[in-house]
Structures are given as C-alpha cells and as structure tokens.
C-alpha cells in the first residue's frame, strides 16, 4: 500500500525510509507516547515533518507529550467533521460512563489539589460502587458500557489495592487528544458541571466570539 506514501518516502535512502516507517507505525499504534530517543525520525525535525505529512494523509497529526515524546491523534478539523456523524461517536451510555470516570478520576482530584499533573491520566480510580450506586445511570447498561470502553482503551481497570477498592481510570486513548481537544474537553466539563460560574460564561462568550469571526470570514 505504498502508493499512498510513495510520494513522501521516495526521496529517502533505505535506512531513513525504514526509520520513517517505524516512527509512523509507532506513533499510530503505541499505547503511550513514544520517546524520541528511540526513533530518529521523531528526533530530527525534517524527518518529523515527513512523519507529520504521512499522518496527514489519514487525517492524523502528531501530538507532543512532555517535550520529548510523541504519539498521534486525529487532526482537529477532521475530528470535527467526523463527529457530525452519529456513527462515529461513542453511544450515549458509553459517553455518560466515560464522563463520570473523568469527573471522579480527574476533575475531583484536581479540584481537591490531589492531582498535580496537567493531563487526563490519573492514578485515582473511580470506584465501581460509585458508578453503580451513586449516579443516575441505569445499572443494567453499566457493565456493557464499561466492557466496551475498556476494549477501546478509553478506560482502564485498576484492581483493588491494599487501601482502595480499585475501579476505573481514563485509558490510554487519552494520550491521543490534541491540545485543542484537551482544552475543549475541559471546557465541556466546566460548562456541564458549573454552568452558572463566571468561567462558564467566559467560555460561552469566547465561543460566540469565535463563531462570529468564522461567520464573517466565510
């Protein structure tokens, strides 16, 4: 299937070509961001540009993590376009459960000052009990939704430890959000949980302003 990539890879010698292919496959399929020390094609800016172009062929892009690691995600414009199609978005039950895991594992520890990391990964599991007993979700749907979320890598299960009951945390897919997607997720959570706060008002105002700008420029 190199016809697709041939144009981009053609100019390189065998070794470089292999490095590009390796870097491309790594960022597309790895569980976690890939350290650039291991992949010359991610370290060298010119090669990395080519990797970015290879990714762009499928609507993907590089996502940087902690300065020197890389992984891939959907380009923002492509994601926005695909999200309009209901088939491309996870079903309601799964999204609802996932939102709860984000709240319990990230938002609450963050707000309580327990989570220093500025990311969506968290060591604080959302207990199954919390999802079962203390939400408005129908319990019957819960297990199937969790199963599918785990299969898709959106949620990971943490087994019970000595001092906690275990539960669920956001899964490795959350490494693959672009900066804009991360920010939007944060905003959506704030809009949902605190619609009344000045922060929500500021977010809404900013979005209105942006829409107006886009409308004017079209």
């Amino acid at each position, binding site marked *: 299937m190199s016809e697709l990539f041939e144009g981009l890879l053609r100019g390189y010698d065998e070794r470089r070509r292999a490095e590009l292919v390796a870097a491309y496959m790594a960022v597309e*399929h790895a569980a976690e961001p890939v350290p650039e020390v291991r992949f010359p094609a991610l370290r060298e800016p010119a090669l990395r540009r080519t990797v970015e172009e290879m990714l762009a062929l499928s609507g993907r892009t590089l996502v940087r993590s902690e300065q020197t690691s890389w992984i891939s995600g959907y380009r923002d414009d492509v*994601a926005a376009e695909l*999200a309009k199609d209901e088939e491309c*978005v*996870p079903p*309601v*039950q799964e*999204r*609802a*459960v*996932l*939102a*709860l895991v984000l*709240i*319990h594992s990230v*938002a609450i520890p*963050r*707000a*309580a000052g327990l*989570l220093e990391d*500025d*990311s*969506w990964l968290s060591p604080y599991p959302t207990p*199954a*009990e*919390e999802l079962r007993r*203390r*939400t*408005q*979700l129908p319990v019957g749907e819960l297990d199937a939704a969790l199963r599918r979320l785990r*299969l*898709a*890598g959106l949620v990971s299960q943490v*087994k*019970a*430890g*000595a001092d906690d*009951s*275990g539960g669920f945390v956001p899964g490795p*897919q959350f490494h*693959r959000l672009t*900066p804009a*997607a*991360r*920010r*939007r*997720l*944060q905003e*959506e*959570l*704030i809009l*949902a*949980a*605190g619609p009344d*706060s*000045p*922060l929500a*008002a*500021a977010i809404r105002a*900013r979005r209105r302003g942006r829409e107006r700008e886009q409308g004017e420029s079209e």
Partner: protein
Amino acid sequence: MSTASENPAASLDDVLVGEAVLGVYRQMFAALARDSGAVVDDPELVDVAETLLAAFADAGEDGLSREQMRYVCRRYPSEVFENRLRVLKGLGAVREVFPKPNQLRYRASFTSVVGLMFVRRMMLDGGQSEMHRLLALEQLNVADPRMTPEQARAGAEGLARAFRLWSVELVTLTNGTIEELREQAPKLWGTEEILLRAERLHGAILRRWPQLDRTCTDLRAAIYAYGDASRRAAARLTDSAGTTRNLTLLPPETWRTFARTAGREELAAVLDGFVFDAAAPWHEPSAVVTAVEDGPRATPPRPAPPRPSVPDTGLSDDTGSDATAMERLRAMAEEVLRGRDRVAVHEVLAQDWVTARRTLADLSSAHLHPELPYRLVWSDGLDVRPDGAPTWVTPGWFERT
C-alpha cells in the same frame, strides 16, 4: 489580597450565595469574636474605616498614599487617625502595596468592608447575631416595613462599596500572575446567581424608595462593574488554561453533585463531538502460534487474586515434610469439594475473613502444588458485596483436574 487568615478549606454551602461570601463571613466572624472589644465598642474606628474605605473604592488599583488618606480623614484629630489606622492595619483591613519602587501606597481589603457592614448593622440593630447571607439579608431588610430610607441608603451604599472593592481586587488579580488569579479569583468572583440577586435587590430598593434613585444608580453601576470584573478574570483564566488546570476552578462539591445528579444525556453531552479510535488489536500470526503453544491449559491467565492474598498465614506451624503437607492439602481440598468436581470459591469463603483467608491460601497452595490434581481458576471482574466478607469477590472455581 485577602488577609492571611482566609480559610481556603471552607466548604461550599449550597444555601449561601457564594463560596467567597461564606469564607469572608467566617473570617470576619472569627476576627470580630477575637477583637470584639477593640472593634465593636469603638464607633469612631468604624467611622474612620468607612471614610477611608469609601476613598479606597474610588481610588481604584493605585490605592491611596498616606497623605491622601490623612486628607480624606481630615476631620478627625491626628491622634485618632493614627490610632485607628494602626488598628485597621493590624486587622488586615488596610495594607501596604508598592506599585512602583519607592512608592508606598495603601489599599483596602474587601473583607473588612463586609465586616464593617456587619459591625455597623450589629451596632444599629443591637445584637443581630448572625449574618450569613449578605444579599438575602439585605433583601429581607428591604421588605421590612420598619426600614427607613436612611437605613436603606446606608445599606445600598455599603453594598455598592463592597462590590466596587471586590471589582478592584479582581481587576488587580486579572493583571497579576496567573497563579494568584487562579487561586484567589474563585473566592471573589460572582456567579450569575449573585449578580441576579443583587440586581433584584437593587430593583426592590428602588421600588420601595424611589427617592434613592441616585444611590441605586451607583449600586447598579457597582454591580455591573463587579460582573464585568468577574468575567474578565474568568476570561483571562480560560485563555491560559492548561489541559486540566481550570478544573480546579469549580469546587470538588460542585463536581460531585453534578456526577450524582446529572442524567445520562447530560453526562454524555460532555463528550459530544469527540471521536476516538475503534478497538483494533493486532494479532500477528506468530503471536497466535505462541499463544497456543505457551498456553498450558488454554484457559484465561489468572488475574491477580483479590487482596490480601498472602499464602503465609495459618501454615506456619505446619513444618512437616512435603508429603505431610501434600496430604494435608489433599484432605482439605477434598473436604472443600465434598465429592463434587468443582465448587465456587465464594461459597467456600462464606465465613469470617480470617478463616476465609487461610482457606484461600490453602486452595492456592493446592492449586500450585505440582503433584496435586486441583486447580483454582479465576474469571475476570470484581463483584462487590458490601455486607459480605470479603466485600469484593472475583468469581472463581476450585476444581479437580
């Protein structure tokens, strides 16, 4: 901006208008309780403070120089002024700032304004013991038939001053460091609800006392300025948001309440418009071969047994030879199985946890013993039984092989 004794761990009470106000009241309560002698009994102190604070509100971010403060309080004798200023500084109501090098200015802390209003009302009403709702209380007063226009005016003016001082604080924070803004602004800024109530209060005052239209206009302007300052502070924070940093701007209780009360659609809406990869594991042919060749029983690899599973208890006094140990395990296994070929683990463990733990350890030993024909097989998952012992159970079977 606020005094050092501000309590950042004050929890949110949904009944109150805002976290900021509650924190402020509690702080002033404490301060007044401590210094009630110094403050309450001295109406002159209150007068000087009020005069100064009115001036501070008008001065804005730059604050006042010493000379300006003295001038504003010129009708008080110098000694009184100095004394009162010293007490106010001690209470944290007035503090020094250095907007430019070699330039000493003073600014007021908004907490003191609220405290002073409280004090004033206490003095006027002779003993109102609690003021836990600034705006609601004002609202009640407006409805109170005994309230006079003068009292209403004073109240409205005080409220306006409070809003103006909060605005000044917010503007200052907005122009300061992001960290301080993120930490302090949520204590100060007004939610839609506060602003709405303030506007309603303003309307109520104006309706009842149309002659106070000038005061009310000032109040209205102050409310708007406060709303504006709140929004600007929030806007600066949204601009600077990291990935999850802004999540700290809602208190944990707000998140928890939302999680517990939001319906499925509301929760799902958070992830509207996000796409993710489909599950797409890769099974390389050689990996398939390895899996078949290496899978000893081709049954699922055992997940970690539930904790604690320390196969050490209860066996320590069993120092016999291996044959003895093996026989003991065999006897135990047969007893557990009771003639059946397999038994569910949770049935076996339906005892007090100490005994159950020992039994589980023995089952594991029987399973691991190479010469004994038993097997302990776990399935995936974790089931919770809050009133059982243990309170979690991973479904499993102990069986004869």
